[in-house]
């Protein structure tokens, strides 16, 4: 069998179980692909020795005959997940040299299921960004290019390394995290599938915190079926995360019948933005028609507070970040600034944080500090939390009226060129999350599915938003959309 790294998780699982291939072979193929893909700057910490050991252990387990679905499957892990004994720094200079003494629950669940860790993946610093340009490791590069152009494009962010690695077949799947769109936007930019589950589905324990009330981990994969398989292995109740849901995890893959007859798909009019590129509008209309053809009932709906989701997010997320990132003070881990004679502890904090945090992280920590400061707490932070209540209520009302899932574009554009957005003011970059951020504020599951290409041949994604805890139903709708869209394009190998 050739090109084992190009297999889907589902096909690899079946081949492993039949004995047609070993995890050692699969893992070797991925490690070779990674070695040849330095130009993408997707993998930033090499764990090939660990990968070979884990693959060997998985092969023993597979021979035993009752291995779980993820057994022997080589994965990339976003640098935000702490993995014991492996350097992890959330793509920040302030965690330089940090080697966690513990394992995140999500990665532990994956290893318990027999998955293999290939290495750590590039991302925006502390997951703050939409282009993986704020990373201390340098930019990750999208394997896709515009037809006839060699302009390097962003794979999106913050899970840009994960997206680039999956799209370039460097791994069979990757973990991502999503606070405002950080799984779904990069998935859309690279022609892959990414799901952010319901808040509380995946444990946040051991995942470096950005905004705790919004952060969720999820899988980034080549297909919807793979997302269902991998999500099932990642989630589950964890006593170490007090917001982890103590409810059973269904068999998500079993929900993939492709039959969506009678399902009600809502099309929210507020997502039809001024200045939306015609290609995105067409993609959305095509996706709507596909779901209708598959037997779903399409219904126009209204989510009236959509417009206020981004401004609410840019109060709540920085506020939580300023609190979460207070721990980086140069005392317990990571970087500590060199001090001048006479410097006290305050100078140590201030110099350490100025040296260790990049510009965007500093900006968000300070905005968060401001909106939480005396005199502004009510005007900004409390008001934003009230608006968040209204945004969630918008969704509750359409679900109560019988809507099963909501279809929207995943992003306002295809992948943009590296550097193209850095000259703009920060708010321009924030607009990337305009279609995804509502889902985090409401705690809902959302999935991005590749559904078309723009005139330059770049992939475009559609987003489906589901009812809380109904990831199975949501994945099934996504599966129907995936089958109808028939997206099979792959990036040309130039790297």
């Amino acid at each position, binding site marked *: 069998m050739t090109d084992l790294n190009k297999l889907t998780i589902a096909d690899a699982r079946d081949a492993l179980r039949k004995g047609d291939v070993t995890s050692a072979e699969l893992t070797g193929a991925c490690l070779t692909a990674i070695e040849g893909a330095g130009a993408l700057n997707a993998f930033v910490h090499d764990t090939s020795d660990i990968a070979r050991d884990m693959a060997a252990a998985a092969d023993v387990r597979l021979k035993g005959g009752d291995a779980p679905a993820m057994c022997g499957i080589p994965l990339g892990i976003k640098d935000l997940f702490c993995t014991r004994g492996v350097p992890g720094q959330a793509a920040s200079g302030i965690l330089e040299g940090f080697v966690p003494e513990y394992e995140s629950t999500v990665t532990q669940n994956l290893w318990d299921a027999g998955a293999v860790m290939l290495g750590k993946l590039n991302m925006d610093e502390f997951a703050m960004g939409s282009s993986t340009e704020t990373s201390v490791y340098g930019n990750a590069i999208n394997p896709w290019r515009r037809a006839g152009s060699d302009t390097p494009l962003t794979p999106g962010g913050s899970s840009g390394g994960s997206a680039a690695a999956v799209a370039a077949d460097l791994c069979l799947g990757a973990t991502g995290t999503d606070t405002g769109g950080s799984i779904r936007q990069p998935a859309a930019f690279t022609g892959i599938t990414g799901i952010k589950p319901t808040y509380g589905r995946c444990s946040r324990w051991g995942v470096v915190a950005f905004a705790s009330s919004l952060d969720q981990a999820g899988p980034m994969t080549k297909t919807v079926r793979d997302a269902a398989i991998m999500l099932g292995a990642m989630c589950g109740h964890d*006593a170490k995360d007090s917001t982890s849901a103590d409810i059973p995890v269904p068999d998500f893959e079993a929900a993939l019948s492709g039959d969506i007859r009678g399902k009600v798909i809502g099309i929210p009019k507020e997502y039809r933005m001024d200045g939306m590129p015609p290609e995105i509008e067409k993609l959305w209309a095509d996706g709507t028609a596909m779901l209708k053809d598959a037997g779903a009932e399409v219904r126009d709906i209204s989510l009236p507070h959509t417009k206020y989701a981004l401004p609410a997010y840019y109060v709540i997320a920085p506020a939580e970040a300023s609190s979460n990132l207070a721990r980086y*003070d140069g*005392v317990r881990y990571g970087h500590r600034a060199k001090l001048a004679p006479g410097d006290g502890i305050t*100078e140590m904090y201030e110099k350490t944080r100025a040296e260790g945090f990049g510009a965007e992280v500093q900006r968000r920590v*300070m905005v968060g500090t401001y909106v939480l400061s005396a005199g502004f707490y009510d005007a900004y932070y409390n008001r934003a939390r*009230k608006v968040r209540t209204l945004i969630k209520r918008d969704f509750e009302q359409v679900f109560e009226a019988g809507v099963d899932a909501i279809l929207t574009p995943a992003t306002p554009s295809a992948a943009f060129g590296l550097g193209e957005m850095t000259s703009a003011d920060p*708010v321009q970059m924030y607009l990337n999350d305009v279609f995804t951020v509502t889902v985090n504020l409401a705690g809902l599951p959302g999935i991005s599915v590749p559904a078309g290409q723009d005139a330059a041949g770049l992939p475009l994604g559609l987003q489906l938003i589901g009812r809380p805890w109904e990831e199975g139903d949501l994945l099934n709708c996504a599966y129907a959309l995936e089958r109808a869209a028939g997206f099979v394009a792959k990036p040309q190998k130039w790297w």
Partner: protein
Amino acid sequence: MSIDTNTAARVAKLARIRVEEDALPALAEEFNTILGFIEQLSEVNVDGVEPMVSVTPMRLPRRADAVTDGDQQAKILSNAPDAREGFFAVPKVVE
């Protein structure tokens, strides 16, 4: 609401991030752009709306008040930039 360089300096101080004097005007301008964007929230009628505390309606779980972990001093100190005699070491705090 407009932020001047004095306010920017105060916020930087509260956040314990050193910002050089000559970088303050640009920082203040960035704050103003972001806060201008956030300002849209004042259009929303939030009368009688409760601020969200938890996105999922749930009671935080409680556990037994018992020691479940500990005796990991070496592991806890293993990443410290400066650790001495079983403690984190920092510059002198009290004169």
